[in-house]
């Protein structure tokens, strides 16, 4: 089975901006892969190259064994593209949109109608299938956009920031849909700015910065390079903080152990599975009679991952400006706003 993605020395420049700077990457098939990075890291440029929308200036890029530059059509037959912009025709119905895309994939009229009906069922839009898309909510549009990329039954689904601008509920729904797809054998490559999204969806995370891959691995591997979750408790008095430290230590601290600050009436403990440990921590503190002012779970953020990997924050100078399509940078930034419009 060929690798899902095989990139060697990919370079892409937009005028003076270097979007991809000799990017090397091998992604084996069979796992959901998230490309993580701040704005301007080159992740959009990379997925646009994977989706054959732009041609690298140098280097080779194979998708499922097909060279994107020489064998473009073969790649296009195998992929489906869904983006953050919900590229569906608002004046047409959901069904018409999907039939159109299926027809363009080369399906016969009958087959296209069948595929559209199947996909509408699958993405939960069967009941709204014959309404014009302009009457859909933002989340429904985004699901239809996902549906449009599925009518060709692609081997690989490419998604550029699929949940950007979505409300939390629509986001969770989309995550579920992506998980279902992956479970049924569709390869998924997505970009995201959010560590928790990569964590939720991907078995493999690729961190891109300044047009290069700076780290890859499972979400757990990457987070362990950054640091652990941390449960932190603020108590009413100093004695409580001391008790809390004992309770937390008894939970089985990892890493550098329990920290306690009696003056600030604060104790904290690092742990690899914060959410898992939180109930036990709460119960233990209550049982020990600690008067809790505040109890928080702090988790590593993308910014901390970047700090750990690069020594600087995500908003570093020199990584700004590039958006994959420099001339229409505003269109990407308009994502959330368009969604708001769509929700009206």
């Amino acid at each position, binding site marked *: 089975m*060929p*690798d899902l993605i*095989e990139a*060697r*020395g990919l370079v892409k420049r937009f005028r003076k901006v270097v979007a991809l700077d000799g990017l090397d990457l091998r992604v084996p098939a069979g796992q959901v892969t998230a490309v993580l990075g701040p704005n301007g890291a080159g992740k959009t440029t990379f997925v*646009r190259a994977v*989706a*054959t*929308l*732009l041609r690298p200036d*140098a*280097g*080779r890029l*194979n998708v*499922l*064994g*097909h*060279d994107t530059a020489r*064998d473009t*059509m*073969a790649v*296009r*037959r*195998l*992929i*489906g*593209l869904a*983006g953050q*912009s*919900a*590229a*569906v*025709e608002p*004046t*047409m119905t959901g069904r*018409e949109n999907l039939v*159109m*895309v299926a*027809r*363009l*994939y*080369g*399906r016969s009229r009958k087959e296209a109608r069948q595929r559209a009906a199947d996909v509408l069922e699958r993405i939960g839009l069967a009941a709204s299938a014959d309404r*014009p898309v302009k009457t859909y909510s933002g989340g429904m549009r985004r699901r239809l956009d996902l549906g*449009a*990329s599925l009518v*060709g*039954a*692609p*081997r690989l689904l*490419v998604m550029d920031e699929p949940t950007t601008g979505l409300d939390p509920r629509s986001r969770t729904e989309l995550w579920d849909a992506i998980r279902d797809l992956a479970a049924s054998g569709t390869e998924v490559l997505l970009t995201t700015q959010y560590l928790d999204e990569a964590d939720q969806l991907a078995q493999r995370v690729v961190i891109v910065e300044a047009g290069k891959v700076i780290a890859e691995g499972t979400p757990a591997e990457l987070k362990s390079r950054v640091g652990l979750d941390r449960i932190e408790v603020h108590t009413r008095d100093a004695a409580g903080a001391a008790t809390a430290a004992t309770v937390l230590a008894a939970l089985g601290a990892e890493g550098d152990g329990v920290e306690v600050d009696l003056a600030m009436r604060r104790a904290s403990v690092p742990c690899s599975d914060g959410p898992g440990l939180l109930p036990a921590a709460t119960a233990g503190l209550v049982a020990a009679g600690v008067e809790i002012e505040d109890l928080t779970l702090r988790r590593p953020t993308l910014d901390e991952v970047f700090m750990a990997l690069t020594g600087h924050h995500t908003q570093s100078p020199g990584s700004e400006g590039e958006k994959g*399509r420099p*001339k*229409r940078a*505003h*269109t990407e930034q308009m994502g959330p706003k368009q969604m708001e419009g769509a929700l009206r």
Partner: protein
Amino acid sequence: MTTIPIATSEPRSTLNANRGAPFPVATLTITARAVKKSIRTPSIMLGGTVSGVMFLLIFRYVFGGAVAHLGGLSYVDFVAPGFIVTSVLFGAMAAGTGVAEDLQAGLVDRLRSLPVRAASIVTGRVIGDTLLTSWGLVVTSAVAFAVGFRVHGGIGPAIGALGLSVLYAFAFCWLFAALGFFAGSAQGAQQLAFLVFPLSFVSSAYVPVSTMPGWMQAFANHQPVTAMVDTARILAEGHAVATALGHGLGYYLPASLAWTAGMTVLCIPVALWRLQRS
């Protein structure tokens, strides 16, 4: 380019049932979408037509009285072919805003990621806009007849003039589609109106070119709209008007066809080139 060999094995079995729509099917599928969008968007459907009809009424009844008869033609007979042909320009502008809108909405990305020839994406759009512009032609012609326009050159040549106008529409749709790729946004594409106004007003469409200042005549006589309007005018009103226009059909018809062919041949590669880099 790096020359390190990497695996390019491509077992046929990895390819799925997505053969990709052949060029004609892809083109017509995209045409159907452009037509549906326009029919279902009243502002597109009515906007151009209503303003065209309003202008026609204003020229016919407000300015018409002040303009002297020309080569034996009443003003309505003179100006109607001008309106019918320039309605093509205003209609074709929609191709420009449409392309810019599709780019902005990400629809062009979606279409380009599908296994279809890139040419079908723009060609489909242009054919759709040509059809809609042709619809505008029919409406404008009908209104022109309603306000007193009559054909004096025979019904055959008049239908020929209408057919030619569809051809002109096709060329202008390619022009505006190509320009739409440069516009950046739908709002930017609206600025294409600044191209349409001089082309339509500084031509023989509404007043005889001979009434304009000399430098303006130079422009008016050497731009596509004058050749197209006068071709249609002679076909609709008969060869007698040719004397008042400066040239006969033997001059205007080849000139208008040359402009049509030139615009199309130039704009197709430009549009495709921009599409690949969008």
